[in-house]
């Protein structure tokens, strides 16, 4: 492979990482908002949140990407920059998976903790912020670590819409070199290294958070 082609791959890595970071941020926001809404007092809020989870988990991530890229602009006149369209599609889809993680972890906190909060006259928001989340968040980390790897794998899907991420630049290199074995092996290795770093990083984060709760 020539230097120019490597540069293409490097740019691809940049776009993939960018998409990963933005997608992860949106995923976390959606997960916590929808996950917390599923423990809300009002039945309507719980129902709407459950509908969100069911629908966005049900739609395949790739179908979602197609929808955001090709239907939104035509049907609603919303033409998003590719990066934001990709972030939106990935964040909404993986956020639906994440909301189940948040809901599960919140439900797993000892009920006595919640009752203690009520007895002390905390508002629901204070209970969530000061009592439930600090205990639930460390428990969510392993699941979120898996979800992050799934999200990384999901970023490859945007290459189909022509966004120049790692998988897309790999396809370009294949067309330029007319040989596929080597370039796809490199691509898989690069994805694997990123995933490896992510999971190890999340393990460190989990240990830190758990130490903080213990204190």
């Amino acid at each position: 492979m020539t230097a120019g082609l490597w540069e293409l791959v490097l740019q691809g890595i940049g776009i993939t990482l960018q998409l990963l970071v933005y997608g992860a941020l949106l995923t976390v926001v959606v997960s916590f908002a929808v996950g917390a809404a599923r423990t809300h007092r009002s039945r309507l809020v719980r129902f709407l949140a459950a509908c969100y989870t069911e629908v966005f988990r049900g739609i395949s991530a790739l179908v979602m990407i197609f929808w955001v890229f090709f239907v939104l602009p035509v049907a609603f006149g919303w033409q998003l920059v590719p990066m934001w369209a990709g972030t939106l599609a990935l964040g909404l889809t993986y956020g639906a998976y994440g909301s189940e993680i948040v809901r599960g972890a919140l439900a797993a906190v000892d009920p006595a903790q919640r009752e203690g909060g009520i007895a002390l006259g905390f508002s629901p928001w204070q209970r969530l912020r000061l009592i439930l989340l600090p205990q639930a968040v460390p428990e969510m980390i392993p699941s979120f670590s898996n979800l992050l790897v799934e999200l990384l794998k999901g970023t490859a899907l945007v290459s189909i819409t022509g966004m120049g991420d790692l998988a897309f630049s790999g396809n370009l290199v294949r067309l330029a070199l007319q040989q596929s074995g080597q370039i796809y092996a490199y691509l898989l290795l690069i994805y694997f290294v990123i995933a490896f770093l992510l999971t190890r990083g999340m393990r460190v984060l989990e240990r830190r958070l758990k130490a903080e709760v213990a204190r």
Partner: protein
Amino acid sequence: MNWDWGAVSDFMPYFWKGLLVTLEALALGSLISFALGLVWTLLMRTPTRWVRWPVGILTEFVRDTPLLVQLFFLFYVLPEAGVTLSPLTTGVLGLGLHYSTYTMQVYRAGIEAVPAGQWEAATALSLPVRRTWTAVVLPQAVRRVVPPLGNYVIAMLKDTPMLMTIGVLEMLGRARLVSQQHFQFTEPLTVIGVAFVVVSYLASVCLRTLERRLVR
């Protein structure tokens, strides 16, 4: 936003064809992943680390890399090695291989969840290895294995649209083809989006019923 029911009815014949291919890929992919996952689990239980380490590294590698790139790899590299397969076969192999690395963990957890006392009792009764597995361990492990396996089948359903990229005309492939011919993207893409939600919801309802049966 203008919605054209005519476009929907034009798309429906292609939709059914696509749904059939999707379900076909899902069924075959699931079978491969169930079988191959069992092979990985058994290999991981061999006493020598010269088998366990390579299998462990290989399966983690497959699990942590995008299925999309794996499909490209299979689709473009296998012919260079002299193996030419149809797009659907390649896709089914890719799906099966990818998800076998998930099902292996399900099997492992299922086997490990059988209490140690059960193994010891089988030893105490001096049951042969075959009977220990078929009469004691597996019947208990299957109950724990079926629900997560079902979840992975549903997850696989949502990954079948990726087969479109190697030229399989499943639901998304059909939708794209039709929308490019008629320049109407909204209707076909929305129809298959709804179809995915409906199919995966129905599948999860079936799974919950099955789970309840098994617990009893």
